[in-house]
């Protein structure tokens, strides 16, 4: 449900709840009792569920992730005008949905990947507001990047399966697929965000700034 529709639903529920507060005597009749049940039980619970779902969906958006000050540099790294920067190349060419760029690459595709990502987000919030947040360039992944995130899209793709470098050594592809050789290891696709080590890079910005979902 769009955010505006959710807000309208929530406000409508609040107005009806106000009606019960101002005129509780309307609950004397049978219809009033049904109204009270709907207004003080069903609608609040439904509104809360829809609101939480709305926030959960919004938390997957690129703008949501980049709304934290500490993430600004990572947002800028998506606009580096250099195809060797992995995150920038994926974002600019819509290899990942541009409006869910962070979430697409930083959440597992396993059954509980979304839940893990949300719990990780809560931890980030705790550190951001109550802890000592690190400098952007000092932010590290909790664990090595999982190749399965890359293989979710690239497995079976011609450029991946028949790539010259990938096939230079017969052991390379099986090692990548088994997550024994990281895609972002040194000498491979090691330039990801590289915040703090940009040097003299140029930035690219879309002429039409509206970010659209890739097909």
């Amino acid at each position, binding site marked *: 449900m769009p*955010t505006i529709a959710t807000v309208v639903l929530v406000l409508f*529920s609040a107005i009806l*709840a106000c009606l019960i507060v101002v005129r509780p005597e309307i609950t004397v009749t049978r219809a009033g009792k049904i109204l009270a049940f709907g207004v003080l039980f069903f609608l609040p619970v439904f509104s*809360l569920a829809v*609101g939480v779902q709305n*926030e959960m969906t919004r*938390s997957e958006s690129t703008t949501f992730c980049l709304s934290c000050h500490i993430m600004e540099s990572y947002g800028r790294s998506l606009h580096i005008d250099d195809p060797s920067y992995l995150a920038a190349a994926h974002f600019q060419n819509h290899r990942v949905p541009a409006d869910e760029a962070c979430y697409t690459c930083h959440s597992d595709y396993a059954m509980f990947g979304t839940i893990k990502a949300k719990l990780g987000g809560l931890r980030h919030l705790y550190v*951001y507001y109550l802890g000592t947040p690190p400098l952007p360039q000092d932010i590290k992944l909790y664990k090595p990047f999982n190749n399965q995130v890359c293989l979710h899209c690239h497995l079976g793709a011609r450029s991946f399966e028949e790539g010259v470098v990938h096939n230079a050594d017969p052991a390379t592809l099986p090692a990548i697929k088994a997550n024994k050789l990281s895609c972002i290891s040194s000498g491979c696709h090691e330039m990801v965000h590289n915040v703090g080590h940009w040097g003299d890079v140029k930035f690219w910005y879309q002429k039409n700034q509206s970010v659209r979902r890739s097909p």
Partner: protein
Amino acid sequence: MNRRLRISGVLVTIGLLVEGLCLMWSRPIAFVVLVVFGGMLIGIGVLFFLLSLASAAPDSAHASGLAPDKRQ
């Protein structure tokens, strides 16, 4: 009963207003505020309403001299 309904209504209304504000406040902390404060207020309001229903039914039945199940 009316007083309990009022308290429940006030809690639910405040909770819903908090939720509405959080939905329009596009910051990561909004989710936490929505769940912790909005959810808590709405949850307590709904529980208060249910408790008021549960506690009011025997009272009103007693007052009218009917058992709750026979009234319904």
